[in-house]
């Protein structure tokens, strides 16, 4: 019982406060960084350096009218934002964000992440369908086709990691990298494929076709407003956090540092958490940086890249890694 209560507290802190809080800060960071990239200031009035802007945004979302337009499919319309947010939160469950601090330390590890995050496509496609508008529908079908296409390359690009480490468990992958060095130095091509696919999976530029505002207004959430729109938004940012966390854990040593051994005990947990936070901050910054650097792909280019380049390339990387291991094993 204490175990369940302790876990429940842990989960409420992570899923109820830390992840949405980090996503809110990320929204602020995105607006500030994009402003600096475009040589303007961005939101800087609410609180120090505009840091309270997300709270102001949240209050505004809450006090807006909760419109359910007459033309939508009501049940699905209300369900879709929740179906989009829930997998985003649950997918974070196996990520060890500090030493021994994964919510669920299961031995199938990353397989569970893929299983859960692939459910996220339902939220987007149901949202697009329920909106009963042409833009929503187009955004929804585009999003579902894009997300499933890049899931292939994403899934295959992780296989070299398991080939080398021989475990699906995230803690074991981190421990291996502590002993032998970061996997990105062994498996650089696999990491590149992983990174590109994770951008497509999170619907971020240069792959934000589902909500390409120049052609689809806002894509699958065109008909959404107030808190329901905010939930879609929140889900997208939490997916970004999870994608960065996976990149860090699988390829960049997770919560451990190279050469320096962190102390044990509670301090070690806190320090390893800070190390992890620092590493994912870099990847989150990369998401924003890429957004304001690269132009958007065309839809046929996007599908070509996914199916004709990244998917076969990821299988070639798998074979190359396996062949390399087969050659060097005595």
């Amino acid at each position, binding site marked *: 019982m204490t175990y369940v209560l302790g876990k429940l507290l*842990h989960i409420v802190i992570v899923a109820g406060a830390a992840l949405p809080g980090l996503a809110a800060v990320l929204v602020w960071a995105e607006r500030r960084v994009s402003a600096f990239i475009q040589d303007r200031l961005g939101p800087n009035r609410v609180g120090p350096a505009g840091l309270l802007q997300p709270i102001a945004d949240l209050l505004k979302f809450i006090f807006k009218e909760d419109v359910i337009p007459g033309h939508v499919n009501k049940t699905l319309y209300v369900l879709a934002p929740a179906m989009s947010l829930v997998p985003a939160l649950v997918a974070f469950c196996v990520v060890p964000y500090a030493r021994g601090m994964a919510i*669920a330390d299961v031995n199938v590890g990353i397989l569970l992440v893929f299983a859960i995050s692939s459910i996220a496509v339902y939220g987007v496609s149901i949202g697009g369908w329920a909106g009963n508008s042409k833009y929503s529908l187009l955004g929804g079908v585009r999003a579902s086709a894009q997300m499933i296409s890049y899931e*292939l390359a994403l899934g*295959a690009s992780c296989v070299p990691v398991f080939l080398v*480490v021989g475990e699906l468990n995230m803690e074991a992958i981190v421990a291996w990298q502590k002993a032998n060095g970061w996997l990105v130095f062994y498996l650089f091509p696999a990491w590149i494929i992983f990174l590109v696919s994770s951008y497509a999976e999170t619907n971020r530029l240069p792959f934000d076709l589902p909500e390409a505002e120049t052609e689809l207004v806002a894509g699958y959430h065109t008909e959404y407003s107030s*808190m329901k729109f905010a939930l879609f938004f929140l889900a997208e940012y939490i997916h970004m956090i999870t994608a960065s966390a996976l990149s860090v854990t699988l390829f960049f040593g997770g919560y451990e540092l190279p050469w320096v051994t962190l102390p044990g005990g509670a301090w070690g947990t806190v320090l390893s958490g800070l190390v992890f936070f620092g590493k994912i901050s870099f990847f989150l910054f990369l998401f924003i940086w890429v957004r304001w650097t690269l132009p958007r792909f065309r839809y046929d280019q996007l599908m070509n890249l996914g199916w004709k380049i990244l998917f076969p390339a990821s299988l070639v990387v798998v074979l190359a890694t396996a062949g390399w291991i087969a050659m060097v094993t005595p």
Partner: protein
Amino acid sequence: MLPLLGGVIPDNGPRDYLPVFLLLIVAAAVAASQLLISWLLGPKTKPNPVKDSPYECGIEPTGEAHTRFSVKFYLVAVLFILFDIEIVFLYPWAVHFGGGVEDGVVFATRGALVRFLFAEMLVFLLILFLGWYWVVKKKALDWEEA
């Protein structure tokens, strides 16, 4: 490990998945409460025809919204199921390959086992590549003419 947050050593059983279910419940509660809050606190106004019509850039909406869309989307979904299953087949193979669980089959060295596993996967992936090449040649993935 902080005892406050209920950390325990996993026992690789169903008990490990209990936190995932708890997280599922908490996540659903988070989503539901946010929807509820805005429903309770937001202002209520009367619906009117303009507000109830789908957004089409301010022009009168024309025709049905659920129009027919390209069959390519269905095709991509079917191909995804095919190839995703093949990818999932790679996972147990990869774990055995690196982890070296030798299930009763006797090989002279660990290298011999690994090379055998590699040759098997080479055959599997070559067949997979053939299928993929056929799909590409059939122009199932070309969007220009669709």
